[in-house]
């Protein structure tokens, strides 16, 4: 089935790889390979749940993850053409960077990239969240099973 809505109503629709490169100076290929892994998971899950169409994909992306949401959406739109996920909207929830102090066990949100405990003033390496890159759920249509439903 041809796809007329690659990338959905994504603002970068109609853009080219070159456009993208010029505003994200550190190359697009990174998001492309993440988009590929994402698509693999989406297709696998849609088969598992007998989905004929995926409309929404909900993601969690940590604020420390080296992923630009717009480039991820753009890449996903390109590579998902002619799949059940064609035109799907990526809903991206940003996950704040939270760390835990190894001395006092305090959990705190890391602001301005300062990775030290506000209580003990020691360096903190134990991240609780912030590097997330996960598919949380998908929404779409399921094939009618004979007689059932």
């Amino acid at each position, binding site marked *: 089935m041809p796809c007329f809505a690659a990338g959905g109503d994504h603002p970068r629709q109609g853009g080219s790889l070159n456009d993208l490169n010029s505003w994200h100076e550190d190359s697009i290929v990174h998001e492309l390979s993440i988009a590929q892994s994402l698509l693999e998971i989406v297709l696998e899950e849609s088969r598992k749940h007998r989905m004929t169409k995926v409309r929404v994909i909900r*993601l969690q992306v940590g604020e420390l993850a080296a992923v630009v949401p717009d480039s991820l959406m753009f890449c996903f739109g390109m590579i998902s053409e002619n799949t059940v996920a064609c035109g799907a909207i990526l809903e991206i929830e940003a996950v704040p960077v939270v760390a835990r102090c190894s001395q006092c066990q305090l959990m705190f949100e890391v602001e301005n990239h300062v990775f*030290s405990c506000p209580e003990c003033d020691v360096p903190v390496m134990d991240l609780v969240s912030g590097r997330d890159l996960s598919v949380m759920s998908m*929404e*779409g*249509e399921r094939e009618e099973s004979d007689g059932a439903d």
Partner: protein
Amino acid sequence: MGQIEVPVVRNILQANERLAASNRRRFQEAGIYVINLMSSPGAGKTSLLEKTIDGLAGQLRMAVIEGDIQSSHDAERIRTKGVQAVQINTEGGCHLDANMIQIAVESLELENLDVLIIENVGNLVCPAEFDLGEHDKVMILSVTEGDDKPLKYPLMFQLSSVLVINKVDLLPYIHCDVQLIRERTRQLNGNQEIFEVSCTSGSGMDLWLEWLKKKVQGVKDQLSRQGEA
């Protein structure tokens, strides 16, 4: 048609992370210490490797995996020194992944090595996101790149156990505040080791080599403790 919502909860990078874990086990079993070396293009990764090979000659057995978008130029620079080098061409890809490393490692005799250094593709963003199974991430920042880089590439600085500040021989000619780099990166990673070096003059290399030898010994000690247990 039935509308449905299905829970998924899967890490997008899970495939890479599984392979990285398997690489890590392989390295552990062979008792070799592995570094993932990262920087922008031209910061001095291959130069640091060349100096390190010279500095360790006759003391440690080393091999190199060279990641590059194209060409095998860097691998040839390493082979000239008599060290085994495997070239990976990513054909446009901006980072190495654990799968590429698993394949490259097949052509190395890990049991006859002490240390393996992987030169990643020149880039301060993407390589940080992909675990290769290394023990430590080591990054190079050359003083010609400026002191604002920790602010722009926080993940890379946060994850790197070591920051090598290279090209300090050029400091008299440029505006770069090394103290400011140290302060900015300390906020991101207060446990980071920092070495100021010049691969051209060789200054600072002794401290870096000492650190590296200690790390290699650490892996060997761990292996022999496991052997006794």
